[in-house]
């Protein structure tokens, strides 16, 4: 594992939440359209999730991109697995794949 100082904190965040969204802002006040789209999808599916505001922590903002090898924010993790950004989560939501993924991973909706 790379010795990026942010990785340890990122791994902890991912381990401590079945579902976690690395986003700009927080779920109640998203600071970017892509981030709020994913928040709305998770809320529509009534999936409880943790979140991390990359705007509040520049080290996290860059660290998560190399951690996931994914250049943009938001980033969704489910049970420790990187699912994707706004495009992929939206596509999976529209096709029903996202709901299946949560069921398959044993993530219950609220």
């Amino acid at each position, binding site marked *: 594992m790379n010795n990026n100082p942010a990785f340890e904190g990122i791994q902890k965040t991912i381990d401590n939440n079945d579902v976690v969204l690395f986003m700009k802002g927080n779920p109640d006040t998203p600071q970017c359209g*892509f981030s709020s789209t994913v928040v709305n999808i998770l809320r529509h599916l009534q999936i409880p999730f943790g979140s991390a505001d990359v705007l509040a922590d520049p080290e996290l903002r860059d660290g998560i*991109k190399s951690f996931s*090898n*994914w*250049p*943009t924010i938001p980033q969704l993790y489910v049970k420790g697995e*990187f*699912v*994707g*950004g706004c*495009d*992929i989560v939206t*596509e*999976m939501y529209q096709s029903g794949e996202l709901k299946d993924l949560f069921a398959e991973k044993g993530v219950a909706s609220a």
Partner: protein
Amino acid sequence: MAMTADHIKLLIEQGLPGAQIEIKDLAGDGDHYAASIIWDGFRELPRVRQHQLVYDALDGRMGRELHALALTTTTPES
């Protein structure tokens, strides 16, 4: 600094040899594009891995010069 559609297409062609690429300019600001890419190399790969390959081809520009690239990745009908 922004990017042109041709430059994006060229980079992806180099990174994914033989891919069929269509770039749409979404906002006319050189920053928001959509790309649909048909490439045999995507076969059997999860969607997130397919997109990562496209981002690798863009060599670090995604999220910097290029703010948004809506990606549609598929394999050729076999």
